[in-house]
């Protein structure tokens, strides 16, 4: 359960989602991934570490290079999960609550 939540925190970040989309088409080295972003290389490395830790990315050694690939099984699990849907309702209901608190004060 915890892992799933971590995976969701991982994809909440737009750069990490962009990394996942990049790697979805082919396995890539950290250097090749970083070349696609303006972000500093250590920042990209940190994103890769987070994505690997929550198992959205897998690593495979090929010769001297380490390649990152998508863990399709884990991605599917996250995709089926309902957190983004829940967040929409959470925001709506929070708004309802704050509007009605003011409404109460006004009356």
């Amino acid at each position, binding site marked *: 359960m915890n892992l799933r939540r971590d995976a969701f925190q991982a994809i909440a970040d737009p750069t990490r989602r962009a990394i996942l989309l990049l790697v979805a088409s082919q396995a890539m080295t950290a250097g090749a991934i970083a070349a*696609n972003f303006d972000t500093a290389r250590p920042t990209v490395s940190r994103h890769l570490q987070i994505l690997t830790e929550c198992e959205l990315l897998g690593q495979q050694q090929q010769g001297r290079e380490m390649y990152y690939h998508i863990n399709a099984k884990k991605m599917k699990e996250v995709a*089926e999960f309902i957190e983004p849907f829940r967040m929409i309702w959470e925001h*709506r*209901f929070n708004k309802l609550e704050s509007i009605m608190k003011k409404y109460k004060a006004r009356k």
Partner: protein
Amino acid sequence: MEQKTRIHAEDGKQELLITRDFALPLPLLFTAYTDPEIVAQWMGTRVLTLDNRVHGSWRFETTDPKGNKHGFNGVIHEFETNRKITRTFEMENTPFSPWIEYLEFESLDGDTSRLTMQPVYRSVEQRDRLLQLPFAQGIQMAHNRIQEIFSKPK
């Protein structure tokens, strides 16, 4: 921040159970669902019709950032003040069939109240697709960003 909204989506069932406790007395929570001006504020929509009675109809219209209009409508089947609203819900011009929503309102104590929403969809597939819509939109945003990155001159 504390997560107050709970969603129960049982595998293989064509319904959801959404519950939320509010730090509001029951009549205020109910008003948030029946006063057109207030509905417009928290749902972020235009309220074209909201006829709060049995056989009454409702229609909302939202405008997305691109200026496209999206319509939603339905009919109210049960209406009991501070207790329940049963209504149909149709997303216009989408492949989704209209569904039925059971909304139940209850008082927890004088200052807090609970809403239980039970939407029942045409099929398990339609429920699951609706659940995944917000996730798909998140991916679409990331995709647009990737296109920006690629189209940027190096």
